């Protein structure tokens, strides 16, 4: 690389704009991911937000941000041939990404809620997730390959020309009022302080109670397994400390006593678990009826 430091103020400002664009894009990618995960379950809620998010990406990122980057890539490629291949790949990514995004928009518009709940909806959700993953990697590569180097490679004249060709369009993400007016359903989601990821409708109280009891069964047997390991370790230590027949007899007595205690735990704990489980499942199954009667 032939880079010598040629940092210039206009260049810095231009790069800041590109980085701010990535910040806005990152926020929307997070939302795309959340809504794509909900699409099959609640299409009537997720689809309008996805439509807004995809539209924002098409109308700003593909229409303004990527051409802005492409102009810069072309300048850098002219100055530093070493960056030719990676920058050509990044430019190609822009074209492919735009086509993919247009396809996603068409598909989302073409499917009704019933179709979105089925296989087609799942396929669309998977494609959106893939788009999100790919865009993240692309953004990372851009930052790593050329964002860091652009200011060192281009001189004042290059920057003046790059900036002159720019329309100065700002990311609507920097203005929440504009976001709310143009992409209301997306803006509403972006303002939510808590996101539930992967939360599905809870099953019945009975199956919740059963699940809880299964976990306590795992704890129970996990605990017994640990007890057994501790017991074995203790026996080995005890046997290694034996010095003579009297000591051996004493050790055997202690080990037998410890074994009996362990057997006692093995015999008493599972039935106790079974009684507790049966009681809590019974309570869980009766709760709806009891509530009904109270009303």
């Amino acid at each position, binding site marked *: 690389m032939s880079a010598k430091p040629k940092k210039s103020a206009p260049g810095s400002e231009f790069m800041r704009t590109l980085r701010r664009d990535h910040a806005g894009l*990152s926020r929307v990618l997070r939302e795309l991911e959340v809504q794509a995960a909900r699409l099959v379950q609640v299409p009537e809620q997720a689809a309008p937000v996805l439509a807004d998010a995809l539209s924002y990406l098409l109308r700003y990122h593909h229409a303004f941000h990527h051409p802005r980057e492409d102009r810069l890539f072309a300048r850098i490629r002219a100055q530093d041939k070493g960056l030719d291949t990676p920058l050509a790949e990044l430019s190609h990514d822009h074209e492919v990404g735009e086509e993919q995004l247009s396809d996603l928009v068409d598909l989302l518009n073409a499917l009704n809620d019933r179709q979105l709940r089925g296989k087609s909806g799942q396929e669309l959700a998977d494609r959106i997730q893939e788009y999100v993953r790919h865009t993240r990697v692309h953004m990372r590569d851009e930052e790593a390959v050329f964002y*860091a180097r652009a200011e060192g490679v281009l001189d004042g004249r290059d920057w003046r020309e790059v900036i002159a060709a720019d329309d100065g369009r700002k990311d609507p993400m920097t203005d929440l009022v504009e976001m709310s007016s143009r992409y209301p359903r997306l803006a509403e989601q972006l303002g939510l302080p*808590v996101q*539930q*990821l*992967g939360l599905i409708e809870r099953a019945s109280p009975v199956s919740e109670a059963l699940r*809880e009891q299964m976990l306590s069964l795992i704890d129970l047997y996990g605990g017994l397994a640990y007890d057994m390991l501790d017991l074995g370790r203790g026996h080995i230590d005890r046997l290694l400390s034996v010095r003579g027949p009297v000591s051996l007899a004493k050790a055997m007595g202690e080990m037998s006593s410890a074994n009996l205690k362990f057997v006692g735990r093995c015999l008493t704990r599972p039935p106790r678990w079974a009684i507790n489980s049966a009681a809590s499942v019974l309570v869980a199954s009766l709760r709806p009826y009891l509530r009904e009667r109270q009303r």
Partner: protein
Amino acid sequence: MVSWQTRTAALLGRLTIRQSLKRGLKVSEMRGRIRAMERFFPAVPDDIEIETTPELSCCDAEWLTLASRQTERVILHLPGGAFMTRFVRAERLLLARMCKAANARGRLVFYRLAPEHPYPAGLDDSFEAYRQLLDLGVSPEHIILSGMSAGGCLALALLLKIRDLELPMPAGAVLMSPAADLTDASESGSRVSNAAADAVLNMERGDDIRQLYLGGAVELVSHPYVSPVLGDFHGLPPLFFQVGSTEILLDDSQRCAEQARLAGVRAEVEVWDRMPHGWQALSFAPESGRAIGRIGDFIRECCP
């Protein structure tokens, strides 16, 4: 749906870490068991370089740098482990993955552990690491704090301390299931409702951890640097919490975020369905990859 990889890890966590915590093991035994478990965690990828200089005065620390990549962002990461232990390899790998996702350098601080070095040793070390970054010329706008569990508590405490000392604030903080309330005062909420469902943690060692971390000075437990949820969040940078819906620490994140929002601080909480404590570090689980991707997005948002 929770992936089979995460389900398996949760089951193993339930059978190992949760059982260990229930048994009142000595700290040295816990550390030994963690070292044994750590052998199963992969090393950091080859394209990450690890350096140890410049050093900190009282504890070890590492720089994680993406090979051949230039970036101004730095993630200052504080590992978890109940202030007494740590999963070194797992935390290193976690930070490496965060650095890749956010195109950042990583600073991993192995702050001094209790009971040998009780509070405020860990906080002092974390603060020294932050000061060092500023002294090295890293702009605070390019620094992101991150912390897992006990490290999340320290990251929040560090933010409060930076604010109190009127130093420039970092650009944001990523808090993965922070243990932000050491008082354990809440007799309701997730500490009770998730007591059985939490795959890793339980409350049975809460008193021991408090005693050992505070070196017996339990009256300090209500101090905001010990239980940050009790602090004033004015002037803090954007906060990003990730927590599992079945964790006993679920409320800590939600209460901190509420406190932050009341103080006018941007705070987001992501509640992940049935994820075990520390799932972000399970590099083989798809949910971990998604969580790290979202952390990378957040870092890019606050640190463009």
